[in-house]
Structures are given as C-alpha cells and as structure tokens.
C-alpha cells in the first residue's frame, strides 16, 4: 500500500511540474507571437495613439516580467485573470463554455465507443473475412476524414436538407437544456465517427493479441461458449490498451473539439481558444490552455489509476 501511495505522490508531483511548465511556456509563446490585443479590439482604422492608450488601460505596457509575476500570483490565488476582449473573468468565460464542450465530448466518446467496441471485437473474431476487410478499410478512411469536412457534410444533409437538427449555435435566450443538447447531435456524430476509427483499430488489435493467448485456447478446450470466451476471458484482458486509447481519445477530443466547435458555431472551450488566439486575448489563451492541460494531465492520471484497478501486475 505505501508503494502505491508513493507512486501516486510521485505522479502528482510530476503533474505539478508539467502544469508549471505549461504556465510559463504558454505565457512566453503568447508574448513572443506578434499581434496586439489592443490593435485587434480597435479594428483596422485604429491609430497608434488609440492603440497605445488602450494598451496602457489594459496594463499591457508593463514590463514582461511584471506581467508574468502578476499572472503567476493570480494563478496561485485561483484567479485566471480578466478577459481583455470579453470584459469578464476568464473563469466566468470558461464556466459559460464548459457545458457544450463537456456534453460534446461525452456524446462523442459514447458514439465512438458504441461503434468501436462491437465492431472492433467482431472484426478480430472474424479475422480475414470480408467483414474484417471492410472494417479495416472503413477505419482507414474514417481516420483520415477531417472532422470539419464531415461536419459540413452533416450540416448540409441533416440541417439544411432534412431539417432534423439545427445547423449551428447553442440556442437563443432561455433555450431549455434538452433543446440546447439537440445542437450537439451533428458535431458529436462528426467527432464520434472520426474517433471511432482509432478505437476500433486498437480494439481489433488488442483482441487479436489476446485471442491467440494460451489461456483463451484453454478456455475453448474446456468447452466455454464463444461469447463467454470473448467477453469473459479475452475482452477483460484486452481492456488495458483499449482503456488507454479511450482515455487518449477523450483528451484528443477536448483539443479536437476546437475545429468542430468553430464549424458548428458552438460556444464551447475550443471555440473560445480559437477566437482568443485571433483576438490575442492573452488571459483567455493562458487560462484556457492551463485548464485544458490540467484536464489532459488528470485524464492521464485517471487512466493510470484504472490500470491499477484492472491489472494487478501494474501495482508491483
């Protein structure tokens, strides 16, 4: 038990170091990138005097070390700063955008897993058959389809053509929760399909490995039925790489939602980052990337913890 505790502590320390690095690197990259938030805010007609006046008002004329010091102190106080462009705290801006991104990620992963697990398992079991060949081909195609392109196709077919789902946005004032969710169907399908390809391929490969193991052959020899062999013996042991790839997919989805949210005009975290970069809204870029990095690190941590649960060998 102490060894597990020490392992946990070591990983938590590693996480803190990664986050400190992210804070510094993001701060520096944002400052080194040319482009001035004041100039962007004031538009193409702004004079240098206007820009200088706004920079001073926003505190952007302070030396870079002073700005870094303020930024780190604010983070330690749990304050991610104030958005230059939106005129609200970064935490408020992020909280307002967490809902669509959270549900988009959740639905996408549910769609991806519900396609990938059965198809991947079947493909492994029916290795070499026509079905398997179709699955292998289809996953290659799906993995290479850009999600924004798929998004536009889905919009044209199901929003414009059939009128089943809204084409974009996240509802107007007072839109009920379930109605807001309807805006997520098409983007979730677009992201889910692209991600299902990766998980399907991993599931298939992991199952193929396990199916050739001695204990599976033994189980079969002892007369266990095909479904019992696959679900009880093979799948349980194939789960570790599958969990890894699902965890990785969730993390990628948080980042991958960027493009999809832009195409579907979803006011989510990904869209916030894209707009913040175009607007050079430094506090939002820094704060959002820090939170996304923290989520990424936490997901990795959670995957590690799942290993400990699923596979006792990892504990030693």
């Amino acid at each position, binding site marked *: 038990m102490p060894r597990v505790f020490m392992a946990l502590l070591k990983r938590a320390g590693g996480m803190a170091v990664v986050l400190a690095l992210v804070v510094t690197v993001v701060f520096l990259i944002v400052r080194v990138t040319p482009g001035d938030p004041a100039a962007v805010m004031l538009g193409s007609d702004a*004079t240098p005097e206007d820009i200088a006046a706004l920079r001073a008002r926003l505190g952007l004329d302070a030396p870079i070390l002073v700005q870094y010091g303020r930024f780190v102190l604010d983070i330690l106080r749990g304050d991610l700063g104030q958005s230059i462009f939106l005129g609200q705290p970064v935490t408020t801006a992020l909280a307002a955008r967490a809902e669509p991104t959270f549900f988009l990620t959740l639905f996408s992963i549910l769609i991806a897993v519900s396609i990938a697990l059965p198809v991947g398992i079947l493909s492994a079991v029916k290795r070499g058959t026509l079905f398997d060949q179709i699955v292998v081909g289809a996953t290659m195609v799906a993995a290479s389809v850009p999600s924004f392109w798929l998004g536009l196709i889905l919009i044209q077919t199901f929003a414009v053509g059939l009128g089943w789902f809204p084409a974009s946005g996240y509802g107007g004032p007072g839109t009920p929760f379930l109605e807001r969710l309807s805006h997520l169907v098409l983007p979730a399908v677009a992201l889910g399909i692209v991600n299902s390809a990766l998980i399907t391929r991993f599931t298939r490969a992991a199952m193929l490995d396990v199916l050739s193991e001695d204990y599976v052959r033994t189980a079969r020899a002892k007369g266990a039925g095909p479904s019992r062999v696959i679900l009880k013996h093979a799948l349980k042991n194939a789960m570790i790489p599958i969990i890894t790839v699902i965890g990785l997919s969730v993390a990628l989805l948080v980042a991958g939602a960027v493009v999809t949210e832009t195409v579907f005009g979803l006011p989510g975290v990904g869209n916030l980052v894209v707009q913040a970069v175009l607007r050079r809204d430094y506090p939002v870029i820094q704060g959002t990337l820090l939170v996304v990095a923290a989520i990424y690190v936490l997901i990795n941590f959670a995957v590690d913890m799942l290993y400990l649960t699923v596979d006792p060998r990892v504990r030693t």
Partner: protein
Amino acid sequence: MKRMLLAAGLAALMAGTSGIALAQTAGGGVLTVATIGEPPSLDVMQTPTDIVLTITQHIFETLYIYDAEWQPQPLLAADMPEISEDGLTYRIPLREGVTFHDGSAFDSADVVASLNRWMEINSKGRQVAEVIETIEADGDNAVVVTLNSRYSPLLATFSQGSPILPSETLGGELTDFIGTGPYRLQERRPDQYTQLVRFEDYVSPEGEPSNYAGRREAIADEIRFVPVPDANTRVEGLIAGQYDYADSLPVSAYERVEAAGNVEPVIFENAGWTSLNMNMAEGPLTDKALRQAVQVALNPSDMMLAAFSDERFFAVDGALFPEGFFWHTQAGVERYGEGDPEAAAALMEEAGYDGTPIRILTSRQYGFHYSTGEVAKAYLEAAGFAVDLQVVDWATLTTRRADKGQWDIFITHSNFPGDPTTLNTITDTYPGWYTSEAKSQAVAAFMNAVTNEERFTAWEGIQSVIYEDAPLVKVGNFNALGGLASGVSGYEPAYWPRFWNVAPRG
C-alpha cells in the same frame, strides 16, 4: 451494453427535441441575425468598430445621423444647428420628450457629459477635442458648442461613435448600456448571443426613412445577434432557416443562396474600398517618384477581379468616394489606370531605384487582401520592382505596420461613410505617416469651409493632392453580400445592417 443503450436513448431524445428548436427560432416577432463575430465591447465610444456599431446603433443614438447621401440629419437633435457668422459657435436644439431605457429624461446635461467622455476616449473625439473650446448646456433642451477654429466636419463627427448616454452612467468603465434607441439590451452571453428587446417608450424622429435618418419603428419584439465566425456556417445556417439575416457572406455563396428558394441574396453596394498604403517615413517609397511608379504600375481591374472574382461585387473607380455619394468627384485621378509598366519604369529610373525589395504586408484573414497582394506583386515585378510579399495574420499585420522599419506597403480596406476627414490617410499619424505641405493646406481649406459648395471644392483639392503625393493606391470599390430569409420585410441594405422598420417572418 448499458452504455450503448444510454447513447442510443440520448440520441433519440436529442433528435426528438430538435424540431422544437427550429420551430421556435422561426417566428414570433424575433429577428435572428448572424454576425461575423463577437463584439469586443458594447462601449461604442471606446471601440467604434463595425460589429460594435452594427449592434449598438439599435441601443444608442447620436445627435445627428447619416442620410442616404451620408449627410448628417438630426436624430437626438431637434434640428440642424444655428451656426454663428464666424463659424465658431454651434447652438444645437435637442428633442423634447425623449427618455432613456432606464426611464430617465434625456436633456442637455446628458449631451454635455457624453460628448466630454467621447472627447476623452474616442479616437475621432480626441481629434475634435483640439478644436472644441467648450460644450455647454443652454437650458435643458439645447447645447452650445464653441470652437477655437472652424471645423466643418463637426456634425459628421457627431454622427458616428458619439452616442448620448445618461450622465449618471458615465463614471469610469461603462457597465450599463442604456441609450435612447428603439431597442434596449436584455442579455448578452459572449460568443452566444446579444439579445435586444423593443423599448416600449421609444420616441422616434420624424421624416421618411433615409439610410439611418428618419422615422424608426421597432416592429420586431426582439433582435438576437448571434456570432457565427465561420462564413460557410453562416450560409448553411441561413439556408437551414436558423437566421433571418446573415452578414458578410462569401461572394462565392451567391448562387447557392439565390438557388435555395427560402432565402435571397442581398448586395450592399460600395461597402468599402481596398487600398495599398505606402510607407512615407522610411524605406524606398519615401521617394515620391517611386510611389507614383507604384501607382501607374498597378492594374486595379485585375486586382479587383482576382479578389472578388465576379463583376457584380466590385467597381473600378479612382474617385475616393463612389458615385451616389455627395463627395464623389474625379478631380486629380489621372494616374489611376490600367497598369503601365513602361511609365512606371521611367519614373523608377528618374528616382534612381536601386533594386531594394518592396515589402508588401498582407493577410489571409481577409482573403481579398491576399489576392490583391498577389496580383500587385506580379504587376510591380513586371515594372521592374523587386517585391517581397509577406503574408501574416491580421493581428500581426497591425503590429508590424506600426513599426516604420518593417514594411513598405500594407494592404487594407476601409468603409466610405461619413466625412472626407474620416479617411485614415488624412490623419498624419496613421501608419504611412503621410505629411506634406500641400496636404496640410488642402485639409486646412476643408476645415475652414462653411457651405456645402465650399466644402466640396475643398475636398476636390484634397483628393488631387492625395493623387499627386501618392500616399496610397486606391484599388477599387467592393460590394458586400448578405442573405435575408424570405418573408422578412422592410429590410434595406446598409453598411451597418439595421433592423428597425423591419418585420420578421410571419
């Protein structure tokens, strides 16, 4: 298995609710407008950009406002001002019975406080502050503006980005967005929507509607401005019935919108003009003959065709204001032509051009800037210039262009509204740093002019000087494409799309 069932259930649930979503957006006195993005602020004095003006013009009102010829007409002012004989005192009568959205009465104290704030924080206001001696109340229903020198564009500058707000809201950062306009702010959720609702106690100015002037009626109960930064999504959302109006569509979408059946394309003519602005402070183009060589080397028709691909969306015209505008004149535009490499080469020889590359800054964020830059490069190279085309994003361009040592030409665009003094290049400190004795004299003559005839003649002088000094190359005028849902009535194309006097779909 349970997970899969859950997913299937959620999908079914979501599919079931989507019909409701579309039905509710479709009518009920709401106008949903897809804009190119989120406004950086609703404080239009601080940030007078197009997207901010488009939204806030429904909330705030100014003393004067532009009519169809872009001439100022009374809005919160009751009439045109009484101007003293020396041209230094303007007495502006105010409309009576007007109230703000918070119920307080509009009076001269609000005008004085608002214009004082405008002169502190607005770029145009700061310029005007140099000529304004005082702004004082003359009773509750008039203000007197005293100038220290004549300033003929005064009313034009009071027509844009200088709204009148209740004096009580004006201390420090603007947090309450209260105006006298036909709509009041109900709710703003950044990157999601800005919701305006009808102001029931609105008192409209009189007169037939003419551009932004004249009678205003809030027919729709609500206007919702929805930021949709992706242009294709604006097109698809419009056709799918989600928006009543979609702004700034790509010109390539014209046929698709026209063929859709449930929507119609809306062309707003002369939305703006493209220009190549030259660096007159550092680098090879400080030489006037070389700037003139750039002018004659370029072919505006080819640049505009490359940028807008279809002649319905642009016009090639050297005049700095298009036809139909009060300020339209051909004075001095002789050097605007079809691209003459030989004449350019002669000017380059006269200037002793040494082959130093001309650095052109352009951006892909505005696709037409980039296309213009590519064609310009080809024509300049044909004339014998070495050209270094630098393609950056817009935010980078605005930073670089502020540095005199980093560029020779940058490509930009501007709108036409207002007064000639709103041209950037008139401002000495605008990147390009255009100053000359001839320009100063021409601008001074304009500022001193009183009657419209005198002002027009003075403007002809400014345009001629600009062509002679060549601080920029005007490329051409372009039109903007929007899309309107069938059934929406009363919409008139406008530079800043406006939705009073507009009835939603039934």
